[in-house]
């Protein structure tokens, strides 16, 4: 049995590379799952599995509606289908198949999608799914997870295989700074306080977590003590950690690579409006489509970079 190797903190690693690595590792660990692909294993990062364990892959060609409803049928035979495609296809084109054939029947399907957010980069607006949190979290009983880096992704994937029920798991495409070491303990539904602080809380998810840590460092130089919470599980949301942030700090800034409408920030706002109303600012894509550009150029243009997060914190504390 080969030992799973993690990346070092500070390295720049694409989360999809972690997807390929953990798939090959888990294929050696257990026989109870199969990968369902729609001719995009190269894009999602699943390709190493195709080479190492071709018998674990069910290929559907470019027909995602069929793949998603078929996943429900595969689950009915006792296997765990790991469905992998781009977010626009998995979370929107085949959304109704996921809702009715998978989620309504409580089938144990794991939907893992790459190509969401501005993180997609040059492929541009049609590939940059900015609505996946919205479409997936609105379906009853679905767990929604967006890991911060490659190491957290691998731990999340194993936890997802062990979890019973439908899950949506985001896979990042572009190189992202590793913020977690091999010792990180990932638990579905548990938010992780990466940095404590008393003035303001930045609740970030996915690629925005590293940027939130950078923003907190900038703010520290200005005498602002910012807490950073990684909200990797968007649904079910960690109510206790959100309430603590609202009660113990001066307000909440959410940061997500997603439309600010109906996404992670909205989930936090729904939670706090009921349990501990707080002042809030929302960093994300402001109800518009993305565009082509490098993944490290677009955040400045769309105000989703560390500077935008720091600005939102300053604005909140004014």
């Amino acid at each position, binding site marked *: 049995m080969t030992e799973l190797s993690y990346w070092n903190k500070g390295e720049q690693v694409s989360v999809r590379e972690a997807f390929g690595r953990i798939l090959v590792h888990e294929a050696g660990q257990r026989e109870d799952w199969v990968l369902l692909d729609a001719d995009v294993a190269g894009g999602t990062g699943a390709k190493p599995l195709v080479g190492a364990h071709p018998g674990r892959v069910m290929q559907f060609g470019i027909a995602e509606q069929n793949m998603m409803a078929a996943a*429900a049928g595969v*689950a009915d035979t006792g296997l765990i289908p790991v469905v992998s495609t781009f977010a626009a296809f998995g979370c929107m084109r085949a959304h*109704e198949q996921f809702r*009715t054939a998978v989620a309504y*029947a409580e089938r144990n399907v794991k939907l893992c999608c790459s190509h969401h957010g501005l993180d997609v980069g040059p492929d541009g607006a049609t590939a940059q799914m900015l609505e996946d949190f919205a479409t997936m979290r609105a379906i009853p009983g679905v767990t929604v997870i967006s890991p911060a880096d490659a190491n957290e992704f691998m731990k999340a994937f194993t936890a997802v295989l062990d979890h019973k029920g439908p899950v949506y798991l985001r896979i990042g495409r572009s190189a992202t700074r590793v913020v977690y070491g091999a010792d990180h303990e990932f638990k579905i539904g548990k938010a992780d306080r990466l940095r404590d602080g008393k003035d303001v809380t930045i609740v970030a998810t996915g690629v925005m977590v590293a940027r939130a840590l950078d923003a907190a460092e900038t703010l520290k130089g200005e005498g602002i003590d910012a807490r950073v919470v990684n909200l990797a599980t968007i649904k079910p949301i960690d109510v206790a950690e959100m309430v603590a942030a609202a009660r113990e700090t001066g307000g909440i800034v959410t940061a997500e690579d997603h439309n600010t409408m109906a996404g992670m920030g909205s989930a936090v706002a729904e939670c706090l409006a009921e349990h501990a109303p707080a002042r809030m600012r929302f960093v994300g894509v402001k109800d518009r489509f993305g565009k082509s550009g490098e993944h490290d150029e677009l955040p400045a243009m769309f105000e989703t970079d560390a500077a935008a997060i720091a600005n939102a914190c300053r604005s909140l504390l004014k």
Partner: protein
Amino acid sequence: MRNDLNEMARQIRVTSLKAIHAARSGHPGGSLSIADMLAVLYFDVMNVDPAKPDDVTRDRLVLSKGHACPALYAALAHKGYFPVAEAETLRRIDSIMEGHPDFRIPGVDAPSGSLGMGLSQGLGMAMGAKHQGLPFRTHVIVGDGDMQEGNTWEAIMSAGFKELDNLVVIYDGNKLQGDAPVETQLSLGDVAQKVAAFGWHTVAIDGHDTAAIHKALMEAKNTKGKPTFIVADTVKGKGVSFMEGVLYWHGSVTMKDAELSDALKELEAA
């Protein structure tokens, strides 16, 4: 072949109509058109045990045309999954007999009601069986509306390409859809020819002849290397003269007491 399949089909029709009448809504036409194929499947061909509805090795039936579920619930009830009286609690707030198939109902193998998703679910079951070496067979009943959904054709492409000989479709071609005849909405012409072009074995039968349905299912079982598509020529509303071929009875209709009793009289005399 059992010799009481016509009687089982008659009982399915009776229970379906009683349930739709009690619910004051539901789809009688398409329920009556599939009664004979359900009778053959549940009372002769399929290897299922009402005591073990979740047995992973059981044969499967996916009713893709989910609006015809009164007939499915009736078949399951007469098979012994739950009391016949429970099948007649269709669509009630205090019942699990949902207006379209809900997998929580014992014996229901897949949710449906949104057309076009059933064949893919059956395909996934057939693929899961092949992957694990499980010998069960998967049957899918599709209607005219299913055949107009793109998702169905994705599944037809895939099943033919994958040579899934453990998968069989029965196409309930009853020629009427929600608003109008298929002929005016979106006719596919020769369906068998189109499906055969994707690598399927096809058989055309009278969908109300239980012996012919049985023979076609046996032929499907003996066909290796190809999934089978049975084109069943059917009559919407079959078995009740004033419903046969009448669009009004597609649904979702409120059936008057007199209409139920006239229908039951015909079915009792049959």
